[in-house]
């Protein structure tokens, strides 16, 4: 997929043109012993060039922030350079023994990530198991369908006051809220994915007298995996939203708590440094997820491409 889009955009992005030329150079210049190395280097160059060619708009947005805040002159809306400066002083140090991060970073971000991670993992396990079970059994799906539809319709944040009543201001409160919010997208996508497996494929597997375990790992899971992964991606975003909200609402530490505390103590630059930190973390998580997804679903994309060209 990236191949086709890159050929379309080469005419516009000079950096990428260079990279493409470098790639062609290694193609045509025979196969010396170091071909693999050169190829790796050029592909790294391509990736860098592509990143530069694609992310100029992000830079433009940050410049707009800087210019806008200088014109607007509000204490609530500090300039990007101030916020970025606070971002580095608040969260990072030059102290190698602490791993170049401040204590604030470890306590606040560590706690937040532990909550989000626990909640998301519980949701993945529960959502996958329940989703597969309901996807296989039509009758079970019919029994639970209204409950699932309704559970999904409740905006998870509306449960926040209730969670505080039941659990108090504890980690369990945050985790349970994240679980409730993220389990439904995973469950429903898994269920749909399992139900949507081509009947011919199921019949083929049955006529081959495939064992149950083998069927599960070679037919059912791969067949449903594109949908499962899209459910996982959606739930990751929702999980982050809920992590922040639950910490804004009631927590004694964590990055959301840091932000709300800073805003109450009129430390607006610090508040924006927290916002920037979450932005960076969210970005990194999504990039990591995209990489895993590309690896796991490579067969899927290739088979679709083959089907399209045939």
């Amino acid at each position: 997929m990236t191949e086709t889009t890159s050929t379309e955009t080469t005419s516009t992005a000079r950096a990428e043109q260079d990279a493409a030329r470098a790639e062609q150079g290694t193609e045509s210049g025979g196969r010396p012993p170091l071909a693999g190395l050169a190829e790796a280097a050029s592909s790294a160059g391509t990736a860098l060039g592509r990143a530069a060619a694609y992310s100029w708009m992000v830079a433009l947005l940050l410049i707009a922030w800087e210019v806008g805040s200088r014109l607007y002159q509000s204490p609530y809306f500090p300039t990007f350079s101030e916020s970025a400066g606070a971002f580095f002083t608040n969260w990072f140090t030059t102290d190698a023994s602490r791993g170049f991060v401040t204590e604030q970073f470890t306590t606040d971000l560590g706690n937040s990530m532990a909550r989000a991670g626990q909640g998301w993992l519980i949701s993945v396990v529960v959502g996958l198991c329940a989703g597969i079970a309901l996807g296989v059994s039509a009758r079970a799906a019919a029994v639970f369908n209204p409950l699932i539809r309704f559970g999904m319709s409740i905006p998870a944040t509306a449960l926040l006051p209730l969670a505080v009543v039941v659990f108090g201001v504890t980690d369990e409160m945050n985790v349970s809220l994240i679980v409730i919010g993220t389990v439904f997208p995973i469950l429903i996508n898994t269920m749909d994915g399992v139900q949507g497996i081509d009947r011919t494929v199921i019949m083929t597997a049955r006529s081959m007298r495939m064992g149950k375990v083998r069927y599960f790992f070679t037919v059912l899971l791969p067949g449903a995996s594109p949908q499962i992964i899209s459910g996982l991606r959606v739930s990751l975003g929702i999980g982050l939203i809920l992590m922040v909200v639950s910490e804004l609402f009631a927590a004694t530490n964590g990055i959301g708590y840091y932000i709300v505390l800073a805003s109450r103590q009129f430390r607006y630059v610090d508040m924006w440094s927290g916002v920037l930190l979450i932005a960076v973390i969210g970005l990194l998580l999504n990039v990591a997820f995209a990489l895993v997804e590309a690896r796991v679903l490579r067969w899927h994309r290739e088979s679709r491409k083959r089907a399209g060209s045939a």
Partner: protein
Amino acid sequence: MSSTSVQTLDKAPSKARAAAGAPAGPLARALRSPLALGLLGVGFLVALWQVASSLGLVARESLPAPWTVTLRIKDLALSGDFRLQVLDTVYTWFLSMALTTAVAVPLGIVLGTVAALYRPTVTVVHALRSVPATVFIPASVLLFGLGLSMKLALTVFAIFGPILLNTVYGVHNTEPQLLTVARSMRWSRFQTLRRVVLPSALPSIVTGIRVASGIALIVIVSVELLGASYGIGTVIVKYQGIPRPDFVYAGIILAGVLGWLLYTTLAAIERRSLPWTRRGTDAGGRS
């Protein structure tokens, strides 16, 4: 309600019957219908709730009896004040959806047709989408106050990405052969857009709007919980503070009904207006 829930389940009954084997009498068949099975599931949950609350398995202040909550649902649904608060939430939801759609869809069509802008746009939207919108709540309360403009700003930020991205993808993925055909027919740019690009991009656009509707409601309710003057979230927080857990439960259930209504309405409009797409109705990201 029943008609739509049956529609979403359209393949279940045949499967259930096939699993049951021999054709049964009308009564047995009715008992095996998805509606009956669904009622069974709901009934089971309510029974569990009743048992848990009457045996005192959970503290009374965290789990009132189902009947009490039912009465409170009636109280809330009949109270004029609550209806005004719900209207405020729905109004914000509708305004943010309309505003975002009006801006993001034309923008997405432009960005999707101009090849040079496609990748940078997708990158920037992905970057912004990775930022959980709720992190801006304290800042935007400071900047916009507690009123409608604050709710709108946050919600638009949260749903602009999904709608724009789906529009751009939809336009970008137009079948190239169709575009070639349009060119060989010497259709103008506008004609091509109207006859080729839009019909093929619409399903993707509508999916984006449907996904956005769920996110919008989550964000609006979070904002109302954390600091807003009106809305269904403020009611729930108020009753939590008193504390009246029965009213909290009732409010949450009504919020769920509201979410379900908004979602079902959108899904029905989608089915009605886009009859040429018969893909899995619930595929893709939902929230």
